[in-house]
């Protein structure tokens, strides 16, 4: 019912957002939605695609990935709603789905949805995602809740720190969605060049080891953008990553998914 109003409202319908639901033929870019559990990923997903993926105030509502599509500025986007995850370093089935998609599914833009009232904890995941992706947009969701809790967030400084666009939003009230669309489009089309934050405080010994492995991985897989993350997982002895290196799956997934022109910064 609420959707009906939005379709006719000229302000919301900025630059002809077309909700394409599950019509996913011939898309130009792939968008992944990730974030901690219960931050409103599925609500953002529904706002973008016009689908009605079940949402609820409930961590762990989404356990599989849902896919939908929308059109914006004559560009077709495929959106993948991933299960919420606290970390990319642990491994339960739902968290693996999120991690593998960001790593091997190679989305063109990763939208990280965070809960503004729990920003510090949410940033733990944000930093991990920024380690493995070049193009991301932070959706600072539940900003209305944060205001009610007297929490002020300087989103401009946050954007400078993280090196990616930060969009304050209240997805439940459909606020900030037009700005989010705009930033997704700018990042996807290469108009906005991300300089994702990379971790600084890792000890010399560790970073030397990571660096050394990273170099060797890049010789084998020159196009791999997240070699550092792969190096870290190898150092930890993650069997699925070891297998991916061994079988060459790592490089294959990367090249196969790039059917559309690459928009590297």
């Amino acid at each position: 019912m609420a959707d009906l109003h939005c379709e006719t409202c000229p302000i919301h319908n900025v630059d002809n957002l077309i909700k394409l639901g599950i019509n996913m033929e011939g898309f130009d870019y792939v968008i992944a939605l990730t974030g901690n559990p219960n931050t409103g990923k599925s609500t953002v997903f529904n706002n973008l695609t016009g689908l009605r993926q079940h949402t609820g105030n409930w961590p762990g509502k989404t356990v599989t990935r849902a896919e939908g599509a929308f059109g914006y500025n004559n560009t077709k986007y495929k959106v993948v709603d991933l299960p919420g995850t606290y970390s990319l370093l642990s491994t339960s089935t739902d968290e693996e789905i999120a991690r593998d998609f960001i790593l091997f599914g190679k989305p063109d833009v990763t939208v990280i949805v965070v809960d503004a009232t729990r920003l510090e904890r949410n940033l733990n995941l944000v930093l991990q995602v920024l380690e493995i992706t070049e193009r991301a947009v932070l959706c600072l969701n539940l900003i209305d809740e944060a205001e009610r809790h007297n929490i002020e967030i300087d989103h401009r400084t946050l954007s400078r720190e993280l090196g990616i666009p930060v969009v304050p939003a209240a997805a439940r009230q459909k606020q900030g969605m037009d700005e989010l669309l705009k930033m997704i489009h700018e990042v996807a089309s290469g108009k906005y060049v991300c300089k994702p934050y990379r971790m600084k405080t890792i000890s010399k010994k560790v970073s030397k080891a990571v660096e050394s492995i990273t170099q060797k991985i890049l010789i084998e897989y020159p196009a791999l953008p997240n070699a550092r993350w792969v190096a870290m997982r190898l150092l930890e002895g993650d069997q699925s990553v070891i297998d991916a290196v061994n079988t060459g799956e790592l490089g294959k997934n990367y090249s196969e998914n790039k059917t559309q022109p690459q928009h590297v910064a």
Partner: protein
Amino acid sequence: MKGIIIMSNKEYIIKEADDLRWELGENFHDHIIESVYNEAGAIAAKVINQKEESKKFHFDQWLDRLVTSRLTGFPIMFLLLAIVFWITIEGSNIPSGLLASLLVDTIHPELKLLAQNIGMPVWINGLLIDGAYLAMAWVIAVMLPPMAIFFPLFTLLEDFGYLPRVAFNMDNLYRRVGAHGKQALTMSMGFGCNAAGVIATRIIDSPRERLIAIITNNFSLCNGRWPTQILIATIFIGGAVPAHLAGIVSAGAVVGIALLGVLFSLAVSWGLSNTVLKGEASAFSLELPPYRPPRILQTLYTSLIDRTIFVLWRAIIFAIPAGLVIWLVSNVQMGELSIAEHFINWSNPFALLFGLNGIILLAYIIAIPANEIVIPTILMLTVTTVNIVGVGSGAGVMFELDSTADTAEILYSGGWSALTGVSLMLFSLLHNPCSTTLYTIYKETHSWKWTVVSALLPIAIGLVVCFFVTQIWLLVA
């Protein structure tokens, strides 16, 4: 590399990683995590400005202490559930009567008349109008009002953020019986739909604990069984007490059955984790989401579309063939009696041991694909086989339902008692999961063995429980 060992670059990468891992030592992982936390903290400190804590925050904390406290947590949970059922039971009586008088009293005779006028053969007329149409009409009249009230109320609780608090209250109990604490979450999901609850067990990492959660999810009353339980409680439990208490007492009975389900899920989890699925419970953390003001309109809309219409549609799809079967078994004669009567007479002695009767067993078999239509099927079969004078107009035709009080009268005259009601509520809680859930279990476990266990274990428990309840009841009464 001088060719002594020829190593590919890939193997070389992995070898070096192995070597370096030894050099770096075991706390490599912790070191990374620590860096992540420190740097996230540093960034947060730069951008977050927390002014004095708001009143809302204090209210949230106060509410959390209240609904998750050891002292008040469980009583509040029971009270909230009881209120939801009470509103459902009190609210659905009148619309049920109205729907029945429209669909059964008004439209059904019109259809019969129309069929007569166009010269439809008697058996097609009976099969379609007295079988399929009436089963569908019956399902709508009985199930739509309670669902249209119950689902929005339940969804409001969910949207507000109450369900994770239920899980929080329960997780310790599950850990103590050797299951995963997150099973409290999947159990709460099962209160909506067992198939969804089974899929939700993916949040549990350990295969052992996940299997326990899958097998015991069926003990959570689901969308299909809430209306059934509410209806039986209204007719049998509510019918047995003075009218002004009926609503409260029947609501209490449904809460009781739901709790019994939780107890069974705990007991069976304990049994499994001490026998075939032995092991330690793993640790986890459960995040309580903030309370959010429920969006009333959107909740009404989605709970009507996603749940009410979805469940009702499924029930109608299964009710139509069931209606055909009911008409056939009550009209095809073998000797003096219909097939239905043969089966009922034959199975009655066996069924009575469990406090049930032959009609219930037959209805259960006819309704195997969808257990939510068991009650409508039972009522149809009761009228067609127990020849109650003045009701209905022939075998296979459902009677005219004006109110639940009339329904109760008819069932009582058909030889039903309060014991039958209690046994039926127990059996409706404790029997195999619906076909959709079983299919989901198979898809999730890829194991015929565990699918069969999930199907047969609850039936066995149900029969044992009904047997003992009946025998003790008969001794005492």
